[in-house]
């Protein structure tokens, strides 16, 4: 075979390796780099999405808040007892202003375990994992979470517990953004259930259960 042809073939083979090399590199990009986008058409469209920046507004935020002092239709939240846990003036309602049902308690348990248990612990006695870690780290600024099954909290009116969830208390921040009024009452009901269970005596058990335990 004439030499020029051999050279041309060799060059062709060498050139054909270049895309393969690029592909290999794209396959082995550093993890923190965006992946290769082969056909990028319309993947990223020019509209503003939730939680993104927006140069149109002074605060640079795409998601807008309702104007101050406005209330969406049907969202007035006028009932002080239900939405603020207040009976009159600054007196908290003693009891939960809703019918406590089994589904409500189940919901309360689920929400309690998500939002409260990290600090207060699943049994409510203040031994959550975050508390354990803060202690292990020797955090001087950490305040131990309240034991929700203590007599102090048992004696508190339901509205007080609701208000604590909604607005926070001392070093505990507000969980109003995470828990709707309905959920706050469900958690309040579950806290009451925890208090009942943690402070129960054998005498509180049904007769059959007591018999099964040999009491």
């Amino acid at each position, binding site marked *: 075979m004439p030499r020029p042809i051999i050279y041309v073939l060799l060059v062709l083979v060498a050139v054909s390796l270049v895309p*393969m090399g690029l592909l290999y590199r794209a396959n082995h990009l550093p993890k923190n780099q965006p*992946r290769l*986008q082969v056909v990028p058409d319309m993947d990223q469209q020019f509209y503003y999405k939730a939680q993104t920046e927006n140069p149109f507004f002074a605060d640079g935020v795409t998601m807008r808040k309702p104007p101050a002092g406005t209330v969406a239709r049907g969202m007035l939240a006028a009932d002080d007892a239900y939405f603020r846990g207040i009976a009159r003036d600054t007196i908290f309602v003693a009891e939960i202003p809703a019918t406590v049902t089994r589904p409500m308690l189940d919901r309360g348990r689920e929400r309690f375990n*998500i939002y409260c248990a990290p*600090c207060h612990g699943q049994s409510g006695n203040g031994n959550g*994992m975050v508390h354990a*870690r*803060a202690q292990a780290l020797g955090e001087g*600024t*950490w305040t131990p979470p309240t034991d929700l099954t203590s007599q102090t909290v048992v004696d508190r009116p339901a509205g007080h517990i609701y208000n604590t969830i909604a607005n926070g208390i001392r070093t505990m921040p507000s969980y109003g953004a995470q828990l709707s009024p309905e959920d706050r009452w469900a958690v309040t009901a579950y806290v009451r259930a925890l208090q009942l269970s943690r402070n129960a005596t054998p005498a509180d058990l049904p007769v059959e259960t007591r018999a099964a335990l040999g009491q």
Partner: protein
Amino acid sequence: MAPDNNAHDQGQSPGTGPDHHDRFVFPKWTNRLREAVAVAALGGVVYLVVLVAGVFSPQNSAIGYAPEQPVPYSHSLHVGELGMDCRYCHVTVETSARANVPPTATCMNCHKTVRTTSDKLAAVRKSAETGEPIHWTRVHDLPDFVYFNHAGHVQSGVGCVSCHGRVDRMEVVEQVAPLTMGWCLECHRNPDPNLRPREFVTAMDWVPEGDPAELGARLRAERKISPSVDCATCHR
């Protein structure tokens, strides 16, 4: 002149005459040119297939992306070690199409009093002071012509782990699923292996007792789940 030429044409064998350069004769190596071209063409096809498959493979386009974030937040510490639920921060995942990235206030729930001088949290404290949001880098990003709803999937009992992997073991969040159309359709055609009881949706380490497909089939029947595979399901 003419007789000379005639004598020359008839009397000489090709390539041996004094002016054999006037006529083209294929050299011997060209005898196998046809086979060589066939092999080259086959090789070219294989080459193109490998290249196109490689370029368009989901492994190439999505999996493994783990961008550096402005705050080195560790899911492996907060979820894996401390056992916090996904929903502690991603509050909207059950009710909204989008699983929100938490506001700085959520970090400050604990970090107001825990690790208050840590350098890693400097950006969080600054954000809390100034109200300027932290500029997180998005990891999982579907094309904008795809509609996806977190709430619908979570309410149907598709676990977080099915798409996001073991986030509780991730120091830096990494995309583990290809998030391609084929991958979506795979589950929409047969969701059973990815269905679980609602209460375990966020559990990272939950595995069903027995056959996952069997449990999935039961849950699917119970909840009347029938994922659509129409174009308009996602492209609306």
